[in-house]
């Protein structure tokens, strides 16, 4: 068992190293000079002044060092938890910028992932046994799961936000408010959260429901089900066994889908101007903010790795066969 986790951890460690290195490299391959674009926005009249500032900021961000040194400094700073200073929201430290955005992204992602997974599986299993539901729900599920996140997001924003005017289309809470622990503020928060959440939830929900429906149909044809039925087991019992077996591939699917869901959340945030990590990534790219981009990616990489690890553990708990397999190997 420990060897299994040891191996897993080693793989995660390697993935982390490679991912962080790549995400350090990519922004630096983009054309352009971040300091220059920062200063060209400055619109300063005198060229001499611009030259002095250029030199100053290039040095401040360490862009005047050779690349290998920048890379070494990056790891050294990273290990101390220092992600640098953002260029876009200068002079705010990247960590601050990310910490402010993370609750919004998590607040969208975690409920969307978990709820869609649970609800999708339940609904899929439920639909698999009812012909009329199966005939109606299946096409809807296919349409939903094939919808790009942002397209659904735009549809929702347009339909419910602009045309019906019931829900706001931008921001995290009303522009007329300041954060406080009042019901009014929480209500505003939920109101703004609803649409981005719905667009994530619906797409993922469709996928899980279809997957589960197929699995259940497959499981109900399995030998052990026939055996149970011939023993005279109740339908309820049979269904419970089938569900439990069918859920296993869905857990693996969850691990595989995680990255896609995160990417979906990022796009959705951009559509709704929701101030989470996705919004930050877009801005960081537009402003050549290497440090913010690195920091945000780093955060996402860590998040996805942790989630994958949790799923690994969950798998061991849920599926006894993995435990037996590990016991033999050890």
């Amino acid at each position: 068992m420990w060897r299994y986790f040891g191996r897993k951890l080693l793989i995660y460690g390697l993935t982390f190293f490679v991912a962080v290195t790549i995400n350090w490299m990519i922004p630096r391959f983009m054309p352009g000079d971040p300091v220059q674009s920062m200063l060209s926005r400055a619109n300063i009249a005198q060229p001499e002044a611009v030259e002095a500032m250029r030199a100053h900021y290039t040095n401040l961000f360490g862009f005047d060092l050779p690349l290998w040194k920048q890379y070494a400094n990056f790891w050294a700073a990273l290990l101390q938890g220092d992600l640098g200073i953002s260029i876009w929201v200068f002079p705010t430290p990247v960590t601050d910028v990310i910490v402010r955005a993370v609750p919004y992204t998590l607040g969208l992602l975690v409920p969307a992932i978990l709820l869609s997974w649970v609800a999708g599986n339940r609904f899929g299993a439920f639909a698999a046994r009812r012909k009329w539901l199966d005939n109606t729900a299946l096409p809807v599920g296919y349409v939903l799961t094939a919808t790009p996140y942002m397209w659904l997001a735009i549809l929702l924003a347009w339909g419910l936000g602009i045309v019906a005017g019931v829900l706001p289309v931008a921001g995290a809470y009303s522009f007329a408010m300041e954060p406080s622990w009042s019901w009014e503020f929480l209500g505003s928060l939920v109101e703004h959260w609803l649409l981005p959440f719905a667009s994530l939830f619906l797409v993922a929900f469709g996928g899980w429901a279809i997957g589960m429906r197929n699995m259940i149909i497959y499981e109900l044809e399995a030998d052990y089900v026939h055996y149970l039925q011939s023993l005279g087991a109740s339908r309820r019992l049979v269904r419970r066994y089938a569900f439990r077996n069918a859920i296993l591939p869905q857990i693996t699917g969850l691990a595989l889908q995680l990255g896609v869901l995160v990417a979906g959340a990022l796009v959705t945030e951009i559509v709704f101007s929701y101030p989470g990590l996705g919004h930050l990534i877009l801005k960081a790219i537009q402003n050549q903010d290497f440090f913010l981009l690195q920091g945000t990616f780093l955060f996402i990489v860590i998040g996805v790795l942790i989630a994958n690890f949790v799923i690994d553990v969950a798998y061991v708990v849920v599926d006894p066969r993995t435990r037996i397999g590990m016991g033999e190997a050890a």
Partner: protein
Amino acid sequence: MRNRVRILIPLLAAGLVAACSGGGGAGTPDTQAPKAADGAAPPAAGGSFPRNETLYTSGTQWGPPANWNPLREWDFATGTKGLVYETLFLYDPDADKFTPWLAESGEWTGDKEYTLKLRQGVTWSDGKPLTADDVVFTFELGKMETVPYHPVWTWLRSAEAVDAQTVKFTFTKANYQQWANNLYSRAIVPKHLWEGRSEDEVMNGSNERPVGTGPYAYQSHDQDRMVWVKRDGWWATKALSKDVKPKYIVDIVNSSNEVAMGLLLQKGLDLSTNFLPGIANLVKGNFGIKTYYPEPPYMMSANTAWLVLNTKKKPMDDAEFRKAVAFSVDTKKIVENVYGNLVKASNPTGLLPQWDKYVDQSVVSQLGFSYDPAKAKKLLADAGYKDTDGDGFVETPSGGKISLKLIVPAGWTDWMEAIRVISAGAKAVGINVEPDFPDYNALVDARNSGKFDMVLNNEKQLANTPWLYYDYLFRTPVQKLQTTVNFGRYENAKAWELAQQLDGVKPDDVEGMKKVTSELQKIQLQDMPVIPLWYNGLWSQTSDAVWKNWPSSAPGAPKYAPTVWRNWLEMGGVLMLTELQPVAG
């Protein structure tokens, strides 16, 4: 087995609950913002701003407000200069008039000596009085190399406080035009709080809790907004009987045009200074949205869009070729089809309408250009550009192929359309110009290092003096990187000499200025280093839902610039705020 799954379900449920409450409580870290702000201002009543006391603006911030440092003139939070920190004078570009603001008066008391009298009774928001020392201190900050107005000190010798209300500036060289610009551009900071800050703190400090002399104070901010609250005891209320009406100003960070438009239509935004394509239809329709002019061009003009030609490359090093390009541009088509008349075609000199008096009409009528394909073809033919290989495009006199790229940043849709029109016009007269849309940063790289053929640019804004435009056109020597001016790397010693001469003419000597600008315009139109295209607007859309008496061309309405753009509050924005009136009550 079964038991384990049963345990798992409540676990999952617990996780869900935790996650949901995480979602619901997403604002947790933000609740610290107002707490941090307590020192500056009490939180708004009930945590929200009453609509009828709040002015919502948008169009300035492209990122979260991150600093309140008035020296960072390009990225401070909207209103830092203007609402909190103030300038010595205000400048009204439309009337070409300086209004004493923190200063009571100022005049040249010698050829190279300027004496400034400060207004009595101006206090900082911490209660301390504004004195001559603050002004001297502010200008002396410019001795630090990275402060944007550092170059002032190449011709300013000293600034000294004569008494508490009087400052005397002495110069090594009197650049009257630039000095006038400095008088209304520099935000005065309090010496008692800024003294002892290192260069790094001065330029890179975020300067939280700004203490200024202006009508507003910091209330709160978040990633997508900046909130100012009116403060008591603004000097102008007593001295000039001017009062700002909105209690709160909420400036919303730009997300997209759609969001700005949506907010404006839902009366959630009072002043949008975004560029909103198609706004003309909303102005004409009955949507309660207004612009400065009710008819084209709808907006005041704010800057000129130029077609910059790289004069270091063949064939753009040939003035005749550049002129042919100028005659091939169908600006009218751009103005009408691309912008729907939201902009105005430029005068051949490129000087903004506010600078009309500096345009020498006789020079323009003699040397000016307009859209004339036949003339463009003739110019090309006369200069020896002929289509020798029969591909429909001319070759250089020596027979070399001409294939040029005209670039604008990807995603700037109006400019992308505009250069398609320019390219079509050029091709029609036989010049092979292809539109190209690199990433913004790649474009800046190419532009600054001189590795481009043609590029559009509009970075010089309206100001008190056309000198800034001539500086933009003619400044030499050409550096390895040309980051702000003379992107086309045009070298003409005489022109630069004249531009410097213009700088030495007093701003009230209009005739003297005209004499120099006429010479400059002659060179400009004969040599055509850059081609002026159109005037971009001071994008501004206002809603009458909550606030009225917005600036407009209507008789009786205020004529100030309706904007909160950076560096525009001292060009009329503040006065706009003092003229606003609540619609109800």
